């Protein structure tokens, strides 16, 4: 990987910009409607089973909306919905490695240094589920069943996303196939860079409240660049040092606090445990 990475950097000039795609989710805007989950499932050919649509432990969601509460009683009770895609952790400090990537015994997943996207290759994965144990966000899910769609629905599958077989792990890919499609267009127009509006994830576009913003975190022209720097922005479990690329913003202090177990150290930077 190291060599490949170096080569990638060496060609930076030739291949244009290095991106770092990420998300900023405004929790104050999220109404918990679940449109992002539905859009994600439709876009990414996520199989579902009628009998356990309520079983959150075996049903696969790439995007999952959590409901959190401040625990107060009326009138102080407050709830917040928290959509959770894959964090596409970069890792930093002395880890400098995505938690799920280094553990994979067969290199079925990697961190792309050109896009910042953590991949998952279903045909390489043999289902040891070590990455699921490594991920603190429960992002990675396992195909406990053979995928099956209601009759006729196979015709409506997205041809850009390959359906998963049973016995492999899958997870949110930031709709990477949309980047591939956007790149195709860019290449045919003889440019290398992809514009912000050309590559947006399905959940971003589906959110009726506009709570999700997606773009290149390193590009000052992208909206996420400024949003992630607002004082109300935070990330989930920052203290672990996973360095996620999904940011959340909320004006409510209890929501920000709820993002980290290690409340005592909130805001004092990253500590490694």
């Amino acid at each position: 990987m190291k060599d490949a990475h170096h080569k990638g950097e060496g060609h930076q000039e030739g291949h244009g910009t290095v991106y770092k795609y990420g998300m900023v989710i405004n929790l104050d805007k999220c109404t918990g409607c679940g449109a992002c989950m539905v859009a994600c499932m439709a876009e990414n050919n996520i199989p579902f089973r009628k009998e356990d649509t309520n079983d959150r432990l075996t049903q696969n969601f790439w995007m999952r909306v959590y409901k959190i509460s401040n625990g107060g009683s009326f009138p102080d009770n407050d709830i917040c919905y928290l959509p959770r895609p894959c964090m596409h952790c970069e890792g930093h400090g002395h880890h400098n490695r995505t938690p799920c990537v280094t553990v994979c015994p067969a290199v079925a997943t990697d961190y792309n240094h050109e896009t910042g996207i953590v991949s998952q290759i279903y045909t390489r994965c043999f289902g040891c589920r070590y990455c699921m144990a490594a991920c603190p966000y429960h992002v990675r899910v396992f195909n406990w069943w053979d995928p099956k769609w209601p009759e006729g629905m196979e015709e409506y599958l997205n041809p850009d996303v390959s359906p998963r077989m049973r016995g492999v792990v899958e997870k949110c890919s930031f709709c990477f196939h949309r980047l591939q499609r956007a790149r195709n267009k860019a290449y045919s127009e003889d440019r290398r860079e992809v514009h912000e509006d050309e590559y947006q994830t399905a959940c971003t576009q589906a959110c009726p409240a506009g709570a999700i913003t997606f773009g290149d975190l390193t590009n000052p022209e992208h909206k996420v660049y400024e949003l992630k720097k607002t004082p109300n922005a935070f990330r989930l479990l920052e203290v672990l040092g996973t360095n996620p690329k999904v940011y959340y913003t909320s004006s409510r202090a209890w929501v920000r606090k709820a993002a980290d177990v290690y409340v005592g150290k909130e805001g004092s930077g990253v500590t490694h445990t």
Partner: protein
Amino acid sequence: MSTSEEKERNVAGGEQRTEGSSWRFLVPVIAFFAGFLVFLCIGWGIFPKILYSEKQQPIDFNHQLHVDEMGDCEACHYFREDGSFSGIPKSENCIECHESAMGEHPEEAKLIDQYIEPGKEIPWLSYARQPDCVFFSHAAHVRMAGLDCMTCHGPIGESEHTRPYQYNRLTKYSRDIWGWNIAGIKTNTWDRMKMDDCAECHEENGTNQACFVCHK
């Protein structure tokens, strides 16, 4: 016990003792080569027959004739506006010229009678179809990297007949992916289309090696 050991000892170590045992020493050698030959035949002859099934293309297409007429590959295998690649032409592309017979070739008559007049698609078999998990961008390779069609597809433009389409019975993938050489020996860039071959070229050209460059 000891007598049989005695005998074997003679076979193994005593070719110069008697003439009878000297040719007997050859028995294992001959047996080895005979077995070698049998397995060689199985490996090179019978195994590929078992592994691959063969189909003929619906129409015996003459690439050379069409390239001469049309000029280049992109006349039929063109890019769409959004950068995606059209791949094998639909029959509507054929209609542009072959609405009625242009010549007297029986294959052309077959095209018109069986597909164009009833308005059916031609069920072409794609030699280069990759497995479902592969994302391949023609735009990136042809437009951006400036590769020749030939680099991956070989001199298919010079062919006058379609060759049989072979596919793996287990995986249903075209044999062009694994390569026609059963030992996997490659002499030209277009002999194989395995992941290793993509990776080889990507490494030479310093392309990003991340999985999500070629996978979906």
